[in-house]
């Protein structure tokens, strides 16, 4: 049967979360989602949120409404493409911040040589970070006893939340045949960072340069560390001789 547009309706009332699972052997293109939220019994203000969860149980996408619904109130929420975050009342415009990092040091290894043993996951820490100011939503924290840094994200500074972050991480592996990946994940489970996201491969030379790109919309002022990890299974130990790099770009309405 040819593909066709359909409406899946689940009218029942449920306590959040409410879910739909794509049935076996099927595939859908999601075009629009609608739901009614009744906050009469809510334990507090809330953000209506759409999450996409992989079959492995990982949240691969988080999409929130522009503003919170007050406890006791109700909302009929529609998600569809092309909707941008609302500009905050009184905002003068938009601002952006760029953060660039390089000078990698892996952990564990005490921040030392960039070498990964077989079947080992190591965090990619940075020894050199540059960022523009303001705003201050992109920053960094010490890891490995202060010998390297982890990029952090938090709403605030000169930006109102939510703001969007686009990132690119590039790792140049030496030539070898074997599974390797690069991934980024929040260190505190922050659901607004739509990660972990990963790029993986096992061939050479096609997978010797891995470029991981992605976006997420940060909603909160809670400090979130963006942990960049590398893994290689059987090529090693593998010494990465070319300086890995990372770039984070945040943009949003001014506070």
């Amino acid at each position, binding site marked *: 049967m040819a593909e066709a547009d359909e409406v899946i309706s689940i009218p029942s009332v*449920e306590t959040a979360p409410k879910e*739909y*699972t794509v049935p076996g052997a099927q595939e859908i293109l999601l075009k629009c989602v609608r739901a009614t939220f009744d906050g009469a019994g809510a334990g507090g203000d809330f953000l209506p949120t759409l999450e996409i969860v992989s079959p492995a149980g990982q949240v691969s996408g988080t999409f929130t409404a522009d503003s919170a619904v007050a406890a006791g109130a109700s909302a009929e929420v529609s998600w569809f493409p092309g909707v941008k975050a609302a500009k905050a009342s009184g905002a003068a415009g938009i601002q952006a911040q760029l953060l660039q990092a390089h000078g990698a040091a892996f952990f564990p290894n005490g921040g030392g040589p960039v070498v990964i043993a077989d079947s080992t996951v190591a965090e990619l820490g940075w020894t050199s970070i540059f960022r523009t100011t303001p705003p201050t939503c992109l920053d960094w924290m010490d890891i490995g006893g202060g010998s390297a840094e982890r990029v952090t994200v938090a709403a605030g500074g000169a930006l109102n939340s939510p703001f969007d972050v686009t990132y690119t991480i590039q790792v140049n592996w030496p030539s070898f045949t074997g599974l390797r990946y690069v991934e980024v994940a929040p260190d505190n489970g922050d659901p607004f960072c739509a990660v972990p996201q990963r790029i993986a491969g096992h061939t050479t030379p096609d997978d010797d340069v891995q470029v991981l790109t992605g976006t997420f919309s940060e909603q909160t002022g809670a400090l979130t560390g963006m942990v960049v990890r590398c893994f290689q299974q059987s090529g090693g130990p593998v010494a990465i001789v070319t300086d890995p790099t990372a770039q984070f770009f945040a943009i949003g309405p001014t506070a």
Partner: protein
Amino acid sequence: MAAPMTAGMPPELDLDAGYVIRVTALDAASGALVSGVKVSGLTLEVTNVHGGDLNSAVQPLLVNEV
């Protein structure tokens, strides 16, 4: 009366079997689930790529149904 709200999502998310579309209510500061929020009238507009039955996963009564 429920106030209308809109939110963005990527165009035509391509989801295979086993993917879960979850509608939930989160705390803006912590990201934690906010208790006691009722969700109803969930409607998904989709393109059915293979033309099979998409409603087999829609159960009349779920565990957390009230």
